[in-house]
């Protein structure tokens, strides 16, 4: 049993933390998050230079990390800094490239010279109906993909897109060049900062990366670990800011934290966040076990993060009062990110349902 991050990982996390502190002050963060790309290219280049992206992948793929705890450590720093950028697409798409043995291509991603994203969720049409899965058809040695994917992270900036699609033999993942023919991208900003886009493929040329659903499931599972670690880091920022506010803001002549109702509610928030942190640790610790165990703890963690995330965001705003709702306060943006993270890779309810399914299968 060991709850330390480990020296190497701690060192990288610390330098990442310093890098964000030095280059991504609040104004810079806001400018980047509201920019058309939704993130700062300079920051991304800096991260690549710092070697941060390499921590997300194993040595054979040109990285020097690749464990679930490595991903967790990086995403915790992303959360703490409220950094926007194609982190998740890099992690998930990169994980598939890694599984496919595409070390060269992944090398370009790690070096920051190519932006990668992961198109997995199906699009929903304007009536709220989930569109049919993207279909993959083989033409000679090449593959053609057709269909739509929804809310693809940083699609507008991507050079490479890892797309999950259904072929005759089942699900597989493919590589699509963003500027290939038959690739249509509609980019838009997100309510919590950053950007995403709708992807429409009409016979777009693609390269098969990995057949079968296992690699996709594993990438999604890693994504759960990463988002949960990010969410917990955001919670901790909100918690600390709220505790600070409760201790300094005065009403009726005393700090508002002296009002027992607020104080006791804040203890619940803090307690729940500790539970969410434990859930995040569990998800990372069981990631390398068998898929059923991995997914069980992944869903438990995402469920916990969703539930605690909403509580934390809502209580942080409520306890700040009006000021907690203002755009000027970083707090409100942390709260938005936290609530929106619930919707990334399946929300609280979806993961409760999956947890129940996994439990009844066990």
């Amino acid at each position, binding site marked *: 049993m060991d709850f330390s991050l480990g020296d190497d990982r701690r060192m990288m996390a610390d330098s990442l933390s310093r890098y964000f502190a030095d280059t991504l002050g609040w104004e810079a963060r806001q400018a980047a998050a509201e920019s058309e790309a939704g993130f700062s290219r300079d920051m991304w280049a800096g991260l690549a230079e710092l070697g941060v992206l390499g921590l997300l992948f194993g040595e054979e793929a040109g990285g020097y990390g690749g464990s679930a705890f490595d991903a967790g450590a990086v995403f915790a720093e992303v959360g703490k800094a409220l950094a926007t950028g194609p982190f998740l697409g890099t992690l998930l798409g990169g994980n598939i490239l890694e599984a496919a043995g595409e070390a060269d291509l992944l090398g370009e991603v790690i070096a920051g010279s190519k932006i990668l994203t992961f198109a997995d*969720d199906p*699009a*929903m*049409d*304007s*009536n*709220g*109906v*989930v569109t049919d899965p993207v279909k993959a058809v083989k033409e000679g040695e090449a593959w053609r993909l057709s269909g739509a994917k*929804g*809310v693809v992270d940083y699609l507008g900036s991507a050079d490479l897109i890892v797309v999950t699609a259904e072929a005759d033999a089942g699900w597989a993942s493919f590589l699509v060049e963003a500027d290939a023919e038959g690739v249509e991208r*509609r980019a*838009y*900003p*997100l*309510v*919590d900062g950053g950007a*995403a886009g*709708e992807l429409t493929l009409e016979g777009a040329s693609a390269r098969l990366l990995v057949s079968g659903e296992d690699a996709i499931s594993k990438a999604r599972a890693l994504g759960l670990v990463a988002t949960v670690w990010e969410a917990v880091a955001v919670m901790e920022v909100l918690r600390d800011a709220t505790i600070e506010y409760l201790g300094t803001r005065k*009403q*009726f002549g005393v700090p508002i934290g002296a*009002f027992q*109702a*607020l104080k006791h509610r804040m203890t619940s928030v803090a307690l729940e966040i500790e539970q969410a942190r434990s859930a995040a640790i569990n998800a990372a610790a069981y990631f390398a076990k068998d898929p059923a165990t991995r997914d069980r703890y992944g869903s438990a963690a995402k469920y916990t993060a969703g539930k605690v995330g*909403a509580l934390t965001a*809502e209580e942080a*705003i*409520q306890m700040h*009062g*009006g000021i*907690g*709702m*203002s*755009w*000027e306060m970083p707090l*409100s*943006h942390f*709260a*938005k990110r936290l*609530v*929106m993270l619930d*919707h*990334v890779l399946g*929300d609280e*309810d979806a993961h*409760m*349902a999956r947890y129940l399914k996994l439990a009844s299968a066990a």
Partner: protein
Amino acid sequence: MDLDFTEKDEAFREEVREFLNEKLPKRLSDKVRQGQRLTKADMEEWHAILNERGWLAPHWPVEWGGTDWSVVQRFIFETETAMAHAPRVVPFGVSMLGPVLIKFGTEEQKKHWLPRILDGSDWWCQGYSEPGAGSDLASLKTSAVREGDHYVINGQKTWTTLAQCANKIFCLVRTSKEGKKQEGISFLLVDMDTPGVEVRPIKLLDGDHEVNEVWFSDVKVPVENLVGEENKGWTCAKYLLSYERTNIAGVGASMAAFERLKEVARTTRRNGSALIEDSLFAARMAEVEIDLENMRTTNLRVLDSVGRGQTPMAESSMLKIRGTEIRQKITALMRRAAGRYAQPFLDEALEGGFNGEPVGPGWAAPVASQYFNNRKLSIFGGSNEVQREIIGKSMMGL
């Protein structure tokens, strides 16, 4: 005991429905239903329509342009207009200042100001909150010093809703530092065109411009704009806070929002079936629906006791708390229903007349903004914590 409305009330409901059917512009109800932003002109248009019918300020005495509706009729009116997706009446003139003037104003003040509220000549906003005084309203610092025929105001108000649309502001100001902090406050009417008044927008977390700071630098206000006695403004403020809080639960608004949610849950399909068939989502919806049905009856019970001459204090606060909780839960469910499509932010889709291609489900565009914006419901207008203090005091004197 029965929950049915009387025949007279049912006839009244029909009358309201017919009116809405005929007079509520579809352009406006579409905007409201879809959660799009209303412009100042939209709100003025609806006020004018209501005023033409004599229904803009139903709770005012008939002599000042109100109605003689019973509390139940007012409930029916509130519910029906909300269910028809009519714009909400801007409350600052009609529901806040109006009653204060009627209670505390001089005959001249009433004659001058009340008609101007109804005909739209004046758009009022409310100068209560200050940066240092949130729930502790009485600790406000904005000062008004009497100099001859004028007060001179200096200070700052904040969270002033729709100040950018208003030409007038009613303010609580400090006219004395003697005695208890509640005893040196006065209630003043201020023309926002007066030199020294400055409105600075506050952007809220959803990106919308709804509230403002209002700054006063040596702003001269004629003494005849004092409402009630000098240093007795707290009486006006308290009256305003306790007045007409019987429809505070927003049952109509919640019912309308819930109908919209049901519609969405029926049409949105996920994993091959309608969202409403998802057992966890359906249970969440049912919990809210039951709570709302219960609250509707709780509200009617409070109205019944008001009709019998009682003044509800704890009950109003309960309605406020549960009403805001329910509305917040409904918007949270809308965001869940949208799933990942809550996240795309298309500012243009929030404006009326948007006819571009939506991203994902057409209804999803405003749901995240509404969810975040609705956090205000439990903060502004007396936070839910303040309401709990009122209940506690009324229940056990503590």
